[in-house]
């Protein structure tokens, strides 16, 4: 019996949409009854069926998700380094009841964002459909980014997105939503990777690693994209026989990862290079935003958006070389299309390009990712080695026919489908497709705004409500697991601190808990008060914070609101543990609620972690308030001792702050010579007055100093001339500051744990700070120098260190070694032990009550 497949993509026209249409054609060529549908297309054609979806009205959840969240809040929150789209999954289109989906054996998804939601994937699979999803980018296994830009959080858990100031915790909510919906090896879900690079990434991802994988490239109409009469085409474009025609184009050239900036910079260098025996340089460009400011010596031919493949194929044929400076890409259609026309490509040796280009034979791979100079050299080398060589053009064509031909890929898809359905496929081409007739039934699909519970939770739920789209019942999905595997359910409540490094918030241990032993649900609470709109209510919240005995909490109206949302969730869902990771700012209400309030009448075990030094904590909370928790967490032993004395009846554990030692690591190169360079980071409890007083003494002695202060604080003391203030810098720049410093010099007024000291130590930089609070526990005896809070003593210690580079080097090595003992993986093990103990106590308490 013929296998029936419906391919579904959000759009027909982007790279994924084009590839999906081709997959549909390849299927039909292989004897599969296949069709393609999307919700967004420039035009409906014989091969493209546009699904009709009901329009969302103003105030509908779907409208708020699209207009207020996806295209308003998210763009406003993008970090300067954010270089690819970040998408929430919702709303979708409710396709389940569509006749084509009902009739299909296989629903094959391509770029399902905003079309088939994560819970809908689960529903399809549970309804008996075999679901294939082709990874046209990384979105299926990330918290929302389509390309991770080097971030590897998707391997464990997306916690803090480096591409976005994620105040609503969208990345962790999106990640947990997908994990719950189709993670853990959802039966019936198959994954198609287009290249080894993407397959490797997806197989390392927490969400998809348990799924069956198929490696199948995109097919191509090799009859449309085929070598043509180059001479005539070039003449038509005004290109001389010796001219070099470079080509560049993407669906949208403003997407940063596509590298338009790199290309323009490279062309400037290329134009200045001496080139032998070649004519004028031309750049043929196409796609959205394809007009570039080209240097003198490079003539531009801009074609804008091209909707006709024949025109595109003509440009490919006429060109000598496709320039593809993307810094992260999967399986670009352009490289396949251009090769099919016989034209080689130059690209960085990264992503799928490294799989697609046979260096020196079908193109040129450039090392030095993202470097415009290297790319210019690569273009020059490719022009010299490849342009004008007909054997190169033949090799490009041969490779494409062998790899991407419709019949070739169709057979691979048929084999994968057949294996999934345990059915053999060897029929004749199916044309026209009966499935396509099903699609053209002009059914109006409802909007699918049923959101998974891990997505529709605070603070996003409050955001939707505040924008007039409250209500909605979250769809509760428990992550698929093999029978008999029980997991502890932990609700982790954390504050969003904008100034925290992506890699150093106190919650990253959650990523390193044993994946099969836990279901973690994060609730992110942004500091501030936008969730409480009325000024009077905010004033009252402050006053009531004092009344409750949690004054700092009261100043954060958002925490006030979130606490109630958390309490509501705990009434509806059973959790084993609730962990208030920023205990100073959470737990005041939940800890006061009686057992009868909670789901099933069982109160979860409550753990609160406290981070502030005693001097502050004694005014921020009280023994009575802390006595309501089942366990108290400290981040330093001395703080734990203080808490034990303050709250004698409650167990207190100490688990230090961790550090990402993979990211924060020593620089490959030696530190540069120059003035003695120091760095300090942050503002909270930093004693810059003392730092400047100590350094002023050295400066007065004529010692050259370079002190980098990385802080967004506006209340710093007057900055001496040797200080450079840096604000709003990227993660990589922050790491570079640590790496290039001779010393992390950061006196502190008080401290329990300190991220900046750990970050510096992990980069192999020695530290000097104040002997206070928990600092000695973190720094130890070998990684740096701790002084009393006195300028003279600090100046003396600094003087000695400046004069002794060998000692500093030894300290740097010791600092790195000590930082490794604080690695997040180790903290994950410690919290695993702690959580099990806490859950055991809770179980014992419940049994006693019973």
């Amino acid at each position, binding site marked *: 019996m013929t296998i029936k497949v419906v391919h579904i993509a959000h759009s027909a026209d982007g790279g994924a949409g084009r590839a999906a249409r081709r997959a549909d054609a390849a299927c039909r060529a292989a004897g599969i009854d296949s069709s393609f549908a999307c919700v967004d297309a420039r035009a409906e054609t014989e091969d493209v069926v546009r699904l009709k979806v009901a329009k969302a009205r103003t105030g509908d959840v779907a409208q708020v998700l699209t207009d207020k969240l996806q295209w308003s809040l998210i763009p406003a929150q993008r970090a300067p380094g954010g270089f690819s789209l970040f998408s929430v999954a919702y709303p979708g289109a409710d396709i389940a009841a569509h006749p084509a989906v009902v009739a299909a054996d296989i629903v094959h998804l391509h770029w399902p964002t905003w079309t088939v939601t994560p819970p809908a994937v689960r529903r399809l699979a549970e309804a008996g459909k075999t679901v294939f999803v082709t990874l046209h980018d990384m979105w299926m296994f990330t918290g929302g980014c389509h390309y991770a830009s080097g971030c590897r959080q998707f391997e464990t858990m997306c916690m803090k997105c480096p591409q976005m100031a994620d105040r609503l915790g969208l990345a962790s909510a999106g990640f947990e939503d997908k994990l719950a919906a189709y993670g853990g090896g959802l039966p019936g879900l198959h994954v198609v990777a287009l290249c080894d690079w993407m397959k490797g990434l997806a197989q390392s991802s927490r969400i998809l690693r348990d799924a069956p994988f198929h490696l199948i490239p995109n097919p191509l109409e090799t009859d449309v994209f085929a070598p043509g009469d180059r001479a005539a085409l070039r003449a038509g474009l005004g290109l001389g026989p010796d001219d070099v025609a470079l080509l560049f184009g993407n669906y949208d050239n403003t997407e940063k990862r596509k590298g338009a900036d790199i290309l323009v910079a490279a062309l400037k260098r290329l134009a200045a290079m001496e080139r032998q025996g070649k004519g004028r340089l031309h750049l043929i460009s196409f796609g959205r935003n394809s007009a570039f400011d080209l240097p003198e010596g490079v003539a531009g031919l801009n074609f804008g958006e091209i909707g006709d493949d024949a025109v595109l194929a003509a440009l490919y044929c006429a060109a000598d070389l496709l320039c593809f400076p993307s810094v992260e890409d999967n399986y670009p259609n352009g490289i396949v299309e251009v090769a099919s026309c016989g034209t080689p490509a130059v690209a960085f040796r990264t992503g799928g390009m490294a799989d697609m280009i046979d260096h020196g034979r079908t193109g040129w791979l450039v090392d030095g990712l993202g470097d415009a100079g290297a790319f210019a050299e690569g273009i020059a080398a490719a022009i010299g080695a490849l342009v004008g060589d007909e054997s190169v053009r033949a090799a490009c064509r041969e490779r494409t026919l062998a790899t991407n031909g419709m019949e070739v890929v169709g057979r691979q898809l048929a084999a994968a489908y057949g294996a999934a359905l345990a059915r053999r496929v060897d029929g004749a081409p199916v044309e026209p497709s009966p499935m396509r007739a099903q699609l053209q039934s002009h059914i109006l699909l409802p909007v699918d705004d049923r959101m998974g519970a891990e997505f529709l939770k605070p603070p996003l739920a409050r955001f939707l409500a505040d924008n007039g789209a409250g209500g909605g019942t979250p769809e509760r999905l428990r992550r698929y697991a093999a029978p008999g595997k029980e997991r502890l359910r932990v609700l982790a409540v954390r504050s969003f601190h904008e100034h925290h490094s992506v890699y150093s918030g106190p919650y990253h241990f959650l990523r390193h808990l044993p994946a099969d032993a836990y279901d973690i649900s994060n609730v992110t609470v942004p500091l501030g008060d936008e969730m*409480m709109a009325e000024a009077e209510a905010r004033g009252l*919240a402050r*006053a009531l914070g004092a*009344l*409750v005995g949690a004054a700092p909490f009261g100043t954060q109206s958002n925490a*006030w609101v979130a606490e109630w949302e958390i309490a509501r969730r705990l009434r509806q869902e059973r959790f084993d543990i609730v962990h208030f990771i920023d205990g100073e700012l959470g737990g005041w209400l939940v800890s006061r*609620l009686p057992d009868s*309030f909670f789901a099933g009448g069982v109160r979860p075990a409550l753990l609160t972690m406290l981070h502030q030094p005693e001097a502050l904590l004694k005014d921020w909370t*009280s023994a009575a308030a802390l006595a309501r928790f089942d366990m108290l967490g400290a981040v330093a032993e001395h703080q734990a001792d203080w808490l034990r004395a303050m709250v004698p009846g409650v167990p207190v554990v100490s688990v230090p702050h961790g550090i990402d030692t993979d990211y924060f690591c020593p620089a490959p190169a030696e530190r540069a010579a120059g003035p003695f360079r120091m760095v300090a980071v942050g503002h909270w409890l930093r004693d810059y007055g003392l730092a400047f007083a100590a350094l002023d003494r050295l400066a007065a002695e004529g010692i050259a100093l370079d002190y980098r202060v990385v802080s967004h604080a506006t209340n710093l003391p007057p900055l001496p001339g040797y200080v450079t203030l840096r604000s709003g810098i990227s993660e990589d720049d922050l790491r570079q500051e640590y790496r290039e410093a001779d010393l992390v010099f950061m006196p502190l007024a008080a401290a329990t744990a300190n991220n900046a000291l750990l970050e510096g130590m992990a980069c192999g930089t020695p530290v000097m700070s104040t002997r206070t609070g928990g600092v000695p526990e973190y720094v130890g005896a070998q990684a740096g120098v701790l002084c009393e809070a006195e300028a003279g003593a600090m100046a003396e210690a600094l003087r000695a260190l400046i004069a002794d580079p060998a000692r500093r080097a030894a300290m740097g090595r010791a600092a790195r070694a000590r930082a490794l003992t604080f690695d997040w993986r180790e903290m994950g093990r410690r919290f695993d032990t702690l959580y099990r103990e806490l859950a055991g106590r809770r179980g014992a308490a419940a049994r006693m009550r019973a």
Partner: protein
Amino acid sequence: MSVRRWSVPEAGACLAGPLTEADEVAFVLPEGAGTVELRGIGDCVAPPVAGAVVLPVEGGFWMRLTPADGTVRMPVPRGLRFVLAQVPGAMPAPSFFPLSGLPEIQAAGADASDGMAEHLAALLRRGSGDAALAVVQRLGPAQAEAVMPDLLAMLADDPGDAPAHLLPFLALCSRGNARCA
């Protein structure tokens, strides 16, 4: 003009309100406490109080004074909704209920019985926080404590338009937290 009287705990704070222009409030300081800090909450200007140091702050005013007789009397200006009174430097430990309420409020308190949680939940779901708080005060600490678990559960199941910032009151009134932590 009625005088509503509140006692400021020795180690803590008390909250007076919701208030109306028809009220006058009096804060009785604990014995031995010379100075009190008052934070007015609402869209208002600070009322004239002899000897007080006054600062306008976001959402109201702040004042500090040392009353000669241990009691602060203050008219309620238009827009003033709540006043938080605290002995400076005291560890926060909340007190919510007035030392002595109005006679009619005390009388109404006697009526509190079955159905009170539903009544309060209905008020809060309609967004009538002031009315709900007034009812809670009429109940007195013991009855308030008894009714709060049910009330919180009802609101969690169906919050309607309940004002989130009033939840601390409700939490305070449950599990024996009505007077102090």
